[in-house]
């Protein structure tokens, strides 16, 4: 059984046609990178999967369950953690309160355990979400999703706007998720770090999948990454 099977997604914002027949899958325990230049449709793909922008055509199966058209809360209840682009922390709530929003599913991840994973967060429990730094907000967004005890974790540009050291931390955490057996779909602009952590990769361009294959093969072909994913040289060099 696959963690995720998305088949022929056609997604629109109003009249504008964004995703054109996007098909992708994530095997159980697999880490899959979804790459592509700005505006390619990566965020829209994740929103289609979690039910925020349901596809007009096509189907989504999660752990074998046909979830197309389900409201987001039911999809989350299957064990789908979503770390959205821009983190979307509840800035008006304290950090402790932010962690009380998710409907926790039983499993190894509890509030105590996520505070152990992110000691920086446990020092700032009483602070409002909006007072946290970008890195802390990213950690909080991941912590919040972990409380669902996800079997499938979707991350949308978790390294965006973070200092290189923090970016390393974020990718370490993604590695740790793999060790926990969580299946991961990772959207990234940081192509080099993403292909290093992923098993397989997809590249989206203008709403279509234009590449699919082993992450290592894509990572070895720098020229190809530049043309497909539009990654700049700086981004390629950014980590380590």
């Amino acid at each position, binding site marked *: 059984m696959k963690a995720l099977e998305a088949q022929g997604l056609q997604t629109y914002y109003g009249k504008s046609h964004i995703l054109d027949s996007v098909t992708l899958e994530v095997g159980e325990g697999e880490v899959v990178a979804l790459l592509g230049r700005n505006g390619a449709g990566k965020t829209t793909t994740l929103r289609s999967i979690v039910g925020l922008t349901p596809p007009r055509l096509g189907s989504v199966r999660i752990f074998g369950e046909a979830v197309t058209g389900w409201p*987001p*809360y039911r999809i*989350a209840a299957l064990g789908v953690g979503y770390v959205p682009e821009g983190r979307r922390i509840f800035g008006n709530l304290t950090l402790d309160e932010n962690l*009380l*929003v998710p409907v926790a599913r039983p499993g190894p991840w509890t509030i105590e355990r996520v505070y152990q994973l992110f000691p920086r967060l446990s020092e700032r429990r009483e602070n409002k979400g909006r007072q946290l730094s970008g890195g802390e907000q990213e950690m909080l967004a991941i912590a919040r999703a972990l409380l669902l005890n996800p079997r499938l974790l979707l991350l949308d540009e978790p390294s965006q706007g973070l200092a290189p050291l923090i970016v390393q931390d974020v990718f370490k955490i993604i590695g740790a998720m793999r060790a926990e057996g969580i299946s991961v779909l990772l959207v990234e602009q940081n192509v080099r770090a993403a292909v290093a952590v992923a098993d397989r990769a997809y590249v989206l361009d203008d709403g279509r999948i234009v590449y699919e294959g082993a992450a290592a093969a894509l990572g070895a072909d720098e020229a190809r990454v530049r043309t497909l994913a539009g990654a700049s040289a700086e981004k390629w060099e950014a980590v380590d």
Partner: protein
Amino acid sequence: MTQLIFNLFNGVIIGAFYALMALGLSLILNLSGVINFAHGGFLALGAYLAYSLMPHIGFWGALVAAPLLTGLLGIAIEWLLIRRTYGRDPLYSLLLTFGLAFIFEDVSRYIWGAQSVPYQIPALLSRPLSLSYFFITGYRVFMVALVALAVAALYLLLTRTRIGIRIRAGTHDLATVATLGVNVRLLRSVNFGLGVYLAGLAGVLAAGQLGLQPTIGTSLIMPSFVAIIVGGLGSLPGTLLGGILIGVASGITSVYFASATEAVIYVMMALVLLVRPRGLLGEEGRLQ
């Protein structure tokens, strides 16, 4: 001097009603984006339910039961009608709640008559507390205390319970709350019921002070909207502050310039908006 204290005290009482109404309106507006014009109708309904229940279960029983029943009716109406307007042009919910307000008023008139009905409060509460300040009746103190209690309970609910924390999170970003596994349809219904409960409670209390006729809600709803704007959209503490401020302002104005008692709240709103467009405690960017 006594006159000033009298009107100040009266202002606090009226302000407490405005605040209670406005808090319910604010809860609903913040989470669902619905400006509930039927709020005054729910207030009237709470009062009439209490009036009809009192012969059977007494004032205290009615004080507990009538707001609860009003809140349940609110949930039913949200489920049947109001939720269909979510995510659409705000005009839909405006027209719907405006229509509901008229329906409530006419139904009240049909069942309970157009004239005011005799609304009994316990003798225990109608006595003045002191001879020199004869206007400070037990009932007035009781109302202010009960509003304070309701506000405190609301505060605890919103800060100490998961459902309250989710309501506040949803005010900020409802879609993200949904992706965390929260049934936001249910959350909005419960929240609507909570707002309407507060209207029902305000009704039960207000009827003992202002008398009870079908239009009781109408006179309180506009100032409640003003309270929200003065306090700042999106801020419940602001709403509370706004309600009490405009109540006190109209209380004081009635001493020195009685004919401006009603106008003063709109003047206040204009002044606040001129100096601080987002209201006293409003979040930045809510109004833009």
